[in-house]
Protein backbone atom coordinates (compact mmCIF):
# COMPACT_ATOMS: atom_id res chain seq x y z
CA UNK A 1 0.00 0.00 0.00
CA UNK A 2 1.18 3.46 -0.77
CA UNK A 3 2.52 5.08 2.44
CA UNK A 4 1.97 8.58 1.11
CA UNK A 5 -1.79 7.93 1.20
CA UNK A 6 -1.67 7.78 4.98
CA UNK A 7 0.40 10.97 5.06
CA UNK A 8 -2.23 12.71 2.90
CA UNK A 9 -5.04 11.49 5.13
CA UNK A 10 -3.24 12.83 8.18
CA UNK A 11 -2.94 16.22 6.50
CA UNK A 12 -6.71 16.08 5.87
CA UNK A 13 -7.25 15.42 9.59
CA UNK A 14 -4.99 18.33 10.52
CA UNK A 15 -6.94 20.61 8.17
CA UNK A 16 -10.15 19.50 9.91
CA UNK A 17 -8.85 20.79 13.21
CA UNK A 18 -7.72 24.07 11.68
CA UNK A 19 -11.18 24.52 10.12
CA UNK A 20 -12.70 24.09 13.58
CA UNK A 21 -10.26 26.44 15.25
CA UNK A 22 -10.48 29.48 13.00
CA UNK A 23 -13.12 32.18 12.96
CA UNK A 24 -12.20 33.68 9.60
CA UNK A 25 -14.48 32.52 6.82
CA UNK A 26 -11.80 33.00 4.16
CA UNK A 27 -9.51 30.64 6.02
CA UNK A 28 -12.24 28.01 6.36
CA UNK A 29 -12.98 28.23 2.65
CA UNK A 30 -9.28 27.90 1.78
CA UNK A 31 -8.91 24.95 4.13
CA UNK A 32 -11.88 23.13 2.63
CA UNK A 33 -10.63 23.80 -0.90
CA UNK A 34 -7.19 22.42 0.02
CA UNK A 35 -8.92 19.39 1.47
CA UNK A 36 -10.80 18.97 -1.79
CA UNK A 37 -7.53 19.03 -3.76
CA UNK A 38 -5.98 16.44 -1.44
CA UNK A 39 -9.02 14.20 -1.81
CA UNK A 40 -8.78 14.60 -5.57
CA UNK A 41 -5.19 13.31 -5.52
CA UNK A 42 -6.12 10.23 -3.49
CA UNK A 43 -7.62 8.05 -6.24
CA UNK A 44 -4.30 8.31 -8.12
CA UNK A 45 -2.50 6.88 -5.09
CA UNK A 46 -4.98 4.12 -4.39
CA UNK A 47 -5.41 2.66 -7.87
CA UNK A 48 -2.57 0.43 -8.91
CA UNK A 49 -3.26 0.90 -12.60
CA UNK A 50 -4.22 4.42 -13.57
CA UNK A 51 -6.75 4.46 -16.36
CA UNK A 52 -8.61 7.30 -18.00
CA UNK A 53 -11.57 7.02 -15.64
CA UNK A 54 -9.42 7.42 -12.52
CA UNK A 55 -7.67 10.45 -13.95
CA UNK A 56 -11.02 11.92 -14.93
CA UNK A 57 -12.50 11.42 -11.43
CA UNK A 58 -9.44 12.98 -9.91
CA UNK A 59 -9.38 16.00 -12.22
CA UNK A 60 -13.12 16.56 -11.87
CA UNK A 61 -12.84 16.34 -8.08
CA UNK A 62 -9.95 18.80 -7.89
CA UNK A 63 -11.58 21.24 -10.29
CA UNK A 64 -14.92 21.20 -8.52
CA UNK A 65 -13.94 20.99 -4.86
CA UNK A 66 -10.64 22.77 -5.11
CA UNK A 67 -11.50 25.61 -7.47
CA UNK A 68 -15.15 26.09 -8.51
CA UNK A 69 -16.96 25.65 -5.18
CA UNK A 70 -14.46 27.73 -3.15
CA UNK A 71 -14.68 30.41 -5.82
CA UNK A 72 -18.48 30.44 -5.55
CA UNK A 73 -18.27 30.58 -1.77
CA UNK A 74 -15.81 33.47 -1.86
CA UNK A 75 -18.16 35.34 -4.17
CA UNK A 76 -21.13 34.66 -1.92
CA UNK A 77 -19.08 35.88 1.01
CA UNK A 78 -18.15 39.06 -0.80
CA UNK A 79 -21.77 39.70 -1.77
CA UNK A 80 -23.11 39.42 1.76
CA UNK A 81 -20.08 41.17 3.24
CA UNK A 82 -19.31 39.10 6.27
CA UNK A 83 -15.83 37.97 7.20
CA UNK A 84 -16.07 36.14 10.48
CA UNK A 85 -18.14 33.65 12.35
CA UNK A 86 -18.85 35.66 15.48
CA UNK A 87 -20.69 33.61 18.05
CA UNK A 88 -20.73 29.85 17.47
CA UNK A 89 -22.86 27.74 19.77
CA UNK A 90 -19.73 25.91 20.87
CA UNK A 91 -16.60 28.08 21.03
CA UNK A 92 -13.63 27.62 18.72
CA UNK A 93 -11.30 26.02 21.23
CA UNK A 94 -13.91 23.60 22.66
CA UNK A 95 -15.04 22.59 19.19
CA UNK A 96 -11.42 22.03 18.20
CA UNK A 97 -10.92 19.82 21.24
CA UNK A 98 -14.16 18.01 20.45
CA UNK A 99 -12.93 17.42 16.91
CA UNK A 100 -9.61 16.19 18.26
CA UNK A 101 -11.41 13.84 20.64
CA UNK A 102 -13.53 12.51 17.78
CA UNK A 103 -10.40 12.01 15.68
CA UNK A 104 -8.68 10.17 18.51
CA UNK A 105 -11.66 7.91 19.14
CA UNK A 106 -12.05 7.23 15.42
CA UNK A 107 -8.39 6.22 15.26
CA UNK A 108 -8.69 3.94 18.27
CA UNK A 109 -12.02 2.29 17.52
CA UNK A 110 -11.86 1.84 13.76
CA UNK A 111 -9.73 -1.22 14.50
CA UNK A 112 -12.76 -2.89 16.02
CA UNK A 113 -14.62 -2.69 12.72
CA UNK A 114 -14.60 -5.81 10.54
CA UNK A 115 -12.68 -4.45 7.57
CA UNK A 116 -11.10 -6.13 4.61
CA UNK A 117 -7.48 -7.04 5.28
CA UNK A 118 -5.96 -4.50 2.94
CA UNK A 119 -7.78 -1.68 4.72
CA UNK A 120 -6.66 -2.32 8.29
CA UNK A 121 -3.28 -0.61 8.01
CA UNK A 122 -4.70 2.37 6.18
CA UNK A 123 -6.22 5.41 7.82
CA UNK A 124 -9.10 5.61 5.33
CA UNK A 125 -11.84 4.52 7.73
CA UNK A 126 -10.79 6.54 10.80
CA UNK A 127 -10.10 9.59 8.61
CA UNK A 128 -13.55 9.27 7.03
CA UNK A 129 -15.29 8.93 10.40
CA UNK A 130 -13.36 11.83 11.92
CA UNK A 131 -13.98 14.10 8.92
CA UNK A 132 -17.70 13.30 8.94
CA UNK A 133 -17.85 14.15 12.62
CA UNK A 134 -15.95 17.40 12.16
CA UNK A 135 -18.30 18.36 9.34
CA UNK A 136 -21.16 17.58 11.68
CA UNK A 137 -19.74 19.86 14.39
CA UNK A 138 -19.28 22.69 11.89
CA UNK A 139 -22.78 22.17 10.55
CA UNK A 140 -24.50 22.16 13.92
CA UNK A 141 -22.59 24.64 16.06
CA UNK A 142 -22.03 27.51 13.67
CA UNK A 143 -24.82 30.00 13.13
CA UNK A 144 -23.79 31.70 9.90
CA UNK A 145 -25.18 30.08 6.78
CA UNK A 146 -21.84 30.20 4.94
CA UNK A 147 -19.99 28.29 7.65
CA UNK A 148 -22.78 25.74 7.68
CA UNK A 149 -22.20 25.20 3.98
CA UNK A 150 -18.52 24.65 4.70
CA UNK A 151 -19.57 22.11 7.33
CA UNK A 152 -21.69 20.38 4.72
CA UNK A 153 -18.70 20.26 2.37
CA UNK A 154 -16.46 18.80 5.06
CA UNK A 155 -19.14 16.21 5.80
CA UNK A 156 -19.27 15.34 2.13
CA UNK A 157 -15.46 15.09 2.06
CA UNK A 158 -15.69 12.51 4.83
CA UNK A 159 -18.18 10.47 2.86
CA UNK A 160 -15.94 10.79 -0.19
CA UNK A 161 -13.02 9.37 1.80
CA UNK A 162 -15.25 6.46 2.78
CA UNK A 163 -16.04 5.98 -0.88
CA UNK A 164 -12.32 5.52 -1.57
CA UNK A 165 -12.63 2.07 0.03
CA UNK A 166 -14.87 1.04 -2.84
CA UNK A 167 -12.97 2.82 -5.55
CA UNK A 168 -12.45 -0.35 -7.57
CA UNK A 169 -16.08 -1.40 -7.30
CA UNK A 170 -17.81 1.95 -7.69
CA UNK A 171 -18.56 2.99 -11.24
CA UNK A 172 -17.43 6.39 -12.44
CA UNK A 173 -21.02 7.46 -13.05
CA UNK A 174 -21.87 7.26 -9.34
CA UNK A 175 -18.86 9.36 -8.42
CA UNK A 176 -19.70 11.99 -11.02
CA UNK A 177 -23.33 11.96 -9.93
CA UNK A 178 -22.27 12.73 -6.35
CA UNK A 179 -20.01 15.55 -7.52
CA UNK A 180 -22.82 16.98 -9.64
CA UNK A 181 -25.26 16.82 -6.71
CA UNK A 182 -22.74 18.59 -4.54
CA UNK A 183 -22.20 21.27 -7.12
CA UNK A 184 -25.91 21.90 -7.55
CA UNK A 185 -26.46 21.93 -3.79
CA UNK A 186 -23.73 24.50 -3.19
CA UNK A 187 -24.95 26.53 -6.15
CA UNK A 188 -28.47 26.63 -4.74
CA UNK A 189 -27.22 27.38 -1.24
CA UNK A 190 -25.19 30.31 -2.52
CA UNK A 191 -28.36 31.79 -4.00
CA UNK A 192 -30.30 31.08 -0.81
CA UNK A 193 -27.59 32.78 1.24
CA UNK A 194 -28.09 35.89 -0.80
CA UNK A 195 -31.84 35.72 -0.23
CA UNK A 196 -31.49 35.15 3.51
CA UNK A 197 -29.22 38.14 3.62
CA UNK A 198 -31.71 40.31 1.77
CA UNK A 199 -34.69 39.16 3.80
CA UNK A 200 -33.15 39.30 7.26
CA UNK A 201 -30.12 41.53 6.63
CA UNK A 202 -28.11 38.92 8.48
CA UNK A 203 -26.88 35.39 7.85
CA UNK A 204 -27.74 34.17 11.31
CA UNK A 205 -29.76 31.03 10.65
CA UNK A 206 -31.39 31.23 14.08
CA UNK A 207 -33.49 34.07 12.76
CA UNK A 208 -35.05 31.78 10.22
CA UNK A 209 -37.46 30.45 12.88
CA UNK A 210 -39.35 33.72 12.86
CA UNK A 211 -41.43 33.71 9.73
CA UNK A 212 -42.31 36.86 7.93
CA UNK A 213 -45.71 37.32 6.34
Amino acid at each position, binding site marked *: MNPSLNALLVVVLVLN*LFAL*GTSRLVTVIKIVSLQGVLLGIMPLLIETEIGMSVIFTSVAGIALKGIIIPFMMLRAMRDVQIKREMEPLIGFLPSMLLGALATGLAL*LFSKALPLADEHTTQLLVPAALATIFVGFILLTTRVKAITQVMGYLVLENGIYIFGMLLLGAMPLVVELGVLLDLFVAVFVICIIINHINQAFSSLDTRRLVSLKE
Partner: protein
Amino acid sequence: MINLLIHLILLLTLPPLLLGIINKTKALFAGRKGPPVLQVYYDLIKLAQRDVVISDVTTWVFTAAPIITLVGVLMAALLVPLGSFPAPVSFVGDLILFAYLLSIGRFFTTMAAMDTGCALEGMGAAREVTFSCLSEPALFFALLVLAKMSGTLMLGDLLHAPLIVGTQSTAASMVLLAIGLFILLLAENSRIPVDDPNTHLELTMIHEVMVLDHSGPLLGIVLYGAAIKLFLFSAILLHILFPFQTGCAPLDWGLFIVEMGFVAVTVGVVESIMARLQMQHVPYLLIAAILFCSFGFVLLVR
Protein backbone atom coordinates in the same frame (compact mmCIF):
# COMPACT_ATOMS: atom_id res chain seq x y z
CA MET B 1 36.98 13.03 16.29
CA ILE B 2 36.95 15.34 13.29
CA ASN B 3 33.17 15.09 13.20
CA LEU B 4 32.99 16.11 16.85
CA LEU B 5 35.13 19.13 16.07
CA ILE B 6 32.92 20.12 13.14
CA HIS B 7 29.87 19.64 15.36
CA LEU B 8 31.25 22.07 17.95
CA ILE B 9 32.37 24.61 15.37
CA LEU B 10 28.99 24.59 13.62
CA LEU B 11 27.18 24.81 16.94
CA LEU B 12 29.18 27.85 18.00
CA THR B 13 29.33 29.73 14.70
CA LEU B 14 26.25 28.86 12.64
CA PRO B 15 23.30 30.00 14.84
CA PRO B 16 23.53 33.78 14.21
CA LEU B 17 23.59 33.05 10.48
CA LEU B 18 20.12 31.47 10.78
CA LEU B 19 18.75 34.69 12.24
CA GLY B 20 20.45 36.59 9.43
CA ILE B 21 18.83 34.36 6.80
CA ILE B 22 15.40 34.77 8.43
CA ASN B 23 15.77 38.56 8.44
CA LYS B 24 16.97 38.59 4.85
CA THR B 25 14.01 36.44 3.73
CA LYS B 26 11.58 38.76 5.49
CA ALA B 27 13.22 41.79 3.90
CA LEU B 28 13.03 40.26 0.42
CA PHE B 29 9.35 39.46 0.96
CA ALA B 30 8.69 43.03 1.99
CA GLY B 31 10.57 44.34 -1.05
CA ARG B 32 13.42 45.77 1.01
CA LYS B 33 17.11 45.10 0.60
CA GLY B 34 17.46 44.21 4.25
CA PRO B 35 20.48 43.97 6.52
CA PRO B 36 23.37 41.78 5.37
CA VAL B 37 23.12 38.09 6.24
CA LEU B 38 26.01 38.48 8.69
CA GLN B 39 24.39 41.40 10.52
CA VAL B 40 23.75 39.40 13.69
CA TYR B 41 27.50 38.66 13.98
CA TYR B 42 28.24 42.39 13.69
CA ASP B 43 25.62 43.09 16.36
CA LEU B 44 27.16 40.54 18.68
CA ILE B 45 30.65 42.01 18.20
CA LYS B 46 29.28 45.51 18.74
CA LEU B 47 27.45 44.49 21.89
CA ALA B 48 30.53 42.74 23.26
CA GLN B 49 32.46 46.02 23.13
CA ARG B 50 29.82 48.05 24.95
CA ASP B 51 29.66 48.84 28.66
CA VAL B 52 27.06 47.22 30.87
CA VAL B 53 24.48 49.35 32.64
CA ILE B 54 23.04 47.57 35.64
CA SER B 55 20.10 48.91 37.60
CA ASP B 56 20.64 49.50 41.35
CA VAL B 57 17.66 47.40 42.36
CA THR B 58 18.84 44.20 40.67
CA THR B 59 20.71 41.40 42.40
CA TRP B 60 23.23 38.84 41.18
CA VAL B 61 20.42 36.92 39.49
CA PHE B 62 20.12 39.62 36.86
CA THR B 63 23.77 39.36 35.86
CA ALA B 64 23.99 35.58 36.13
CA ALA B 65 20.78 34.78 34.23
CA PRO B 66 22.00 35.32 30.64
CA ILE B 67 25.15 33.32 31.33
CA ILE B 68 23.25 30.43 32.95
CA THR B 69 20.78 30.46 30.07
CA LEU B 70 23.58 30.34 27.51
CA VAL B 71 25.39 27.53 29.34
CA GLY B 72 22.13 25.58 29.70
CA VAL B 73 21.35 25.88 26.00
CA LEU B 74 24.92 24.95 25.03
CA MET B 75 24.82 21.87 27.27
CA ALA B 76 21.48 20.89 25.78
CA ALA B 77 23.01 21.33 22.35
CA LEU B 78 25.68 18.76 23.18
CA LEU B 79 22.94 16.13 23.59
CA VAL B 80 21.41 16.73 20.16
CA PRO B 81 22.92 14.99 17.15
CA LEU B 82 23.34 17.12 14.04
CA GLY B 83 22.40 15.52 10.75
CA SER B 84 23.38 11.88 10.59
CA PHE B 85 26.29 12.22 13.02
CA PRO B 86 26.16 11.05 16.65
CA ALA B 87 25.72 13.49 19.51
CA PRO B 88 28.87 14.40 21.51
CA VAL B 89 27.28 13.35 24.81
CA SER B 90 24.68 10.62 25.09
CA PHE B 91 23.28 8.44 27.86
CA VAL B 92 19.99 6.72 28.68
CA GLY B 93 17.30 9.19 29.70
CA ASP B 94 19.10 12.30 28.50
CA LEU B 95 15.92 13.54 26.83
CA ILE B 96 14.67 14.61 30.26
CA LEU B 97 17.93 16.44 30.90
CA PHE B 98 17.60 18.09 27.50
CA ALA B 99 14.11 19.41 28.23
CA TYR B 100 15.06 20.72 31.65
CA LEU B 101 18.32 22.30 30.57
CA LEU B 102 16.16 24.43 28.30
CA SER B 103 13.76 25.02 31.18
CA ILE B 104 16.51 26.17 33.51
CA GLY B 105 17.41 28.82 30.99
CA ARG B 106 13.80 29.91 30.86
CA PHE B 107 13.57 29.92 34.65
CA PHE B 108 16.54 32.22 35.01
CA THR B 109 15.42 34.52 32.19
CA THR B 110 12.07 35.01 33.91
CA MET B 111 13.77 35.42 37.29
CA ALA B 112 16.02 38.13 35.86
CA ALA B 113 12.99 39.82 34.32
CA MET B 114 11.21 39.92 37.66
CA ASP B 115 14.41 40.93 39.42
CA THR B 116 14.32 44.29 37.66
CA GLY B 117 11.03 45.11 39.37
CA CYS B 118 9.60 46.45 36.12
CA ALA B 119 5.90 45.67 35.74
CA LEU B 120 6.10 45.09 31.99
CA GLU B 121 8.95 42.63 32.33
CA GLY B 122 6.97 40.75 34.98
CA MET B 123 4.11 40.55 32.48
CA GLY B 124 6.45 39.14 29.84
CA ALA B 125 7.75 36.61 32.37
CA ALA B 126 4.22 35.50 33.24
CA ARG B 127 3.42 34.99 29.55
CA GLU B 128 6.62 33.10 28.86
CA VAL B 129 5.95 30.71 31.74
CA THR B 130 2.28 30.25 30.82
CA PHE B 131 3.07 29.37 27.23
CA SER B 132 5.91 27.08 28.20
CA CYS B 133 3.41 25.04 30.27
CA LEU B 134 1.84 24.14 26.93
CA SER B 135 4.95 23.83 24.82
CA GLU B 136 6.68 21.39 27.17
CA PRO B 137 4.03 18.62 26.84
CA ALA B 138 4.25 19.04 23.07
CA LEU B 139 8.00 18.51 23.19
CA PHE B 140 7.62 15.44 25.39
CA PHE B 141 4.93 13.93 23.19
CA ALA B 142 7.19 14.46 20.18
CA LEU B 143 10.08 12.76 21.94
CA LEU B 144 7.72 9.99 23.07
CA VAL B 145 6.77 9.24 19.47
CA LEU B 146 10.43 8.95 18.52
CA ALA B 147 11.20 6.89 21.62
CA LYS B 148 8.41 4.48 20.74
CA MET B 149 9.68 4.27 17.19
CA SER B 150 13.31 3.60 18.09
CA GLY B 151 12.79 1.75 21.37
CA THR B 152 15.46 3.75 23.15
CA LEU B 153 15.55 6.66 25.58
CA MET B 154 18.82 8.16 24.39
CA LEU B 155 18.24 11.45 22.63
CA GLY B 156 21.06 10.72 20.18
CA ASP B 157 19.59 7.40 19.00
CA LEU B 158 16.02 8.51 19.34
CA LEU B 159 16.37 11.42 16.95
CA HIS B 160 17.99 9.11 14.43
CA ALA B 161 14.95 6.83 14.52
CA PRO B 162 13.45 8.15 11.24
CA LEU B 163 16.86 7.60 9.60
CA ILE B 164 17.24 4.02 10.84
CA VAL B 165 13.67 2.73 10.93
CA GLY B 166 12.76 4.49 7.70
CA THR B 167 9.65 6.58 7.18
CA GLN B 168 7.79 4.11 4.96
CA SER B 169 5.57 2.62 7.64
CA THR B 170 5.35 5.71 9.81
CA ALA B 171 4.83 8.44 7.22
CA ALA B 172 1.57 9.52 8.83
CA SER B 173 3.01 10.05 12.31
CA MET B 174 6.05 11.78 10.85
CA VAL B 175 3.84 14.33 9.07
CA LEU B 176 2.04 15.10 12.34
CA LEU B 177 5.29 15.25 14.26
CA ALA B 178 6.85 17.63 11.74
CA ILE B 179 3.89 20.02 12.03
CA GLY B 180 3.91 19.83 15.83
CA LEU B 181 7.65 20.41 16.06
CA PHE B 182 7.51 23.31 13.63
CA ILE B 183 4.87 25.05 15.76
CA LEU B 184 7.03 24.31 18.78
CA LEU B 185 10.05 25.82 17.03
CA LEU B 186 8.12 29.02 16.33
CA ALA B 187 6.73 29.21 19.86
CA GLU B 188 9.92 28.38 21.74
CA ASN B 189 11.97 30.86 19.76
CA SER B 190 9.41 33.67 19.93
CA ARG B 191 8.89 33.78 16.19
CA ILE B 192 5.91 35.42 14.53
CA PRO B 193 2.61 33.68 15.04
CA VAL B 194 3.42 33.64 18.74
CA ASP B 195 5.63 36.61 19.35
CA ASP B 196 7.17 39.25 17.13
CA PRO B 197 10.90 39.61 17.72
CA ASN B 198 10.90 43.05 16.08
CA THR B 199 8.16 44.92 17.90
CA HIS B 200 9.08 47.00 20.84
CA LEU B 201 5.59 47.43 22.13
CA GLU B 202 5.95 46.12 25.64
CA LEU B 203 2.29 45.26 26.07
CA THR B 204 2.34 42.54 23.44
CA MET B 205 5.86 41.26 23.68
CA ILE B 206 6.87 38.00 25.33
CA HIS B 207 10.53 37.23 25.06
CA GLU B 208 11.85 40.63 24.06
CA VAL B 209 10.19 42.39 26.94
CA MET B 210 12.00 40.21 29.45
CA VAL B 211 15.42 41.30 28.31
CA LEU B 212 14.69 45.02 28.03
CA ASP B 213 17.01 45.86 30.90
CA HIS B 214 19.95 43.84 29.69
CA SER B 215 22.61 45.81 27.89
CA GLY B 216 26.02 45.44 26.33
CA PRO B 217 27.68 42.02 26.53
CA LEU B 218 24.79 40.65 28.62
CA LEU B 219 22.33 41.47 25.84
CA GLY B 220 24.78 39.93 23.38
CA ILE B 221 24.78 36.72 25.40
CA VAL B 222 20.96 36.69 25.48
CA LEU B 223 20.86 37.17 21.71
CA TYR B 224 23.46 34.47 21.11
CA GLY B 225 21.66 32.05 23.44
CA ALA B 226 18.39 32.64 21.59
CA ALA B 227 20.13 31.98 18.27
CA ILE B 228 21.55 28.69 19.56
CA LYS B 229 18.10 27.65 20.78
CA LEU B 230 16.70 28.28 17.29
CA PHE B 231 19.56 26.23 15.86
CA LEU B 232 18.78 23.39 18.28
CA PHE B 233 15.10 23.21 17.46
CA SER B 234 15.85 23.41 13.73
CA ALA B 235 18.31 20.54 14.11
CA ILE B 236 15.62 18.44 15.84
CA LEU B 237 13.07 19.29 13.16
CA LEU B 238 15.53 18.34 10.41
CA HIS B 239 15.75 14.80 11.78
CA ILE B 240 12.05 14.42 11.05
CA LEU B 241 11.92 16.36 7.79
CA PHE B 242 14.99 15.00 6.03
CA PRO B 243 15.98 11.58 7.33
CA PHE B 244 18.59 11.03 4.62
CA GLN B 245 22.32 10.47 4.59
CA THR B 246 24.78 10.09 1.78
CA GLY B 247 27.35 8.16 3.81
CA CYS B 248 30.15 10.54 2.87
CA ALA B 249 30.93 12.80 5.85
CA PRO B 250 31.81 16.10 4.11
CA LEU B 251 28.77 15.76 1.87
CA ASP B 252 26.54 15.08 4.88
CA TRP B 253 27.81 18.19 6.66
CA GLY B 254 27.18 20.27 3.54
CA LEU B 255 23.70 18.78 3.27
CA PHE B 256 23.05 19.61 6.91
CA ILE B 257 24.02 23.26 6.45
CA VAL B 258 21.83 23.55 3.35
CA GLU B 259 18.89 22.01 5.23
CA MET B 260 19.43 24.46 8.09
CA GLY B 261 19.24 27.28 5.58
CA PHE B 262 16.02 25.78 4.25
CA VAL B 263 14.43 25.80 7.73
CA ALA B 264 15.53 29.40 8.24
CA VAL B 265 14.00 30.43 4.91
CA THR B 266 10.77 28.59 5.80
CA VAL B 267 10.56 30.43 9.11
CA GLY B 268 11.17 33.68 7.26
CA VAL B 269 8.39 32.90 4.77
CA VAL B 270 5.95 31.99 7.57
CA GLU B 271 6.79 35.23 9.33
CA SER B 272 6.19 37.18 6.15
CA ILE B 273 2.81 35.71 5.26
CA MET B 274 1.30 35.40 8.73
CA ALA B 275 0.16 37.99 11.20
CA ARG B 276 0.92 37.70 14.87
CA LEU B 277 -1.81 35.86 16.75
CA GLN B 278 -3.78 37.63 19.41
CA MET B 279 -2.34 36.87 22.80
CA GLN B 280 -5.37 34.85 23.91
CA HIS B 281 -5.19 32.72 20.77
CA VAL B 282 -1.60 31.60 21.29
CA PRO B 283 -2.65 28.73 23.61
CA TYR B 284 -4.86 27.37 20.78
CA LEU B 285 -1.80 27.06 18.59
CA LEU B 286 0.19 25.35 21.32
CA ILE B 287 -2.67 23.00 22.14
CA ALA B 288 -2.79 22.18 18.44
CA ALA B 289 0.92 21.32 18.63
CA ILE B 290 0.25 19.01 21.59
CA LEU B 291 -2.62 17.38 19.71
CA PHE B 292 -0.52 16.80 16.59
CA CYS B 293 2.30 15.21 18.53
CA SER B 294 -0.06 13.07 20.59
CA PHE B 295 -1.93 11.93 17.47
CA GLY B 296 1.43 10.96 16.06
CA PHE B 297 1.79 8.74 19.10
CA VAL B 298 -1.73 7.30 18.77
CA LEU B 299 -1.07 6.46 15.12
CA LEU B 300 2.14 4.72 16.04
CA VAL B 301 0.73 2.51 18.80
CA ARG B 302 -2.64 1.73 17.30
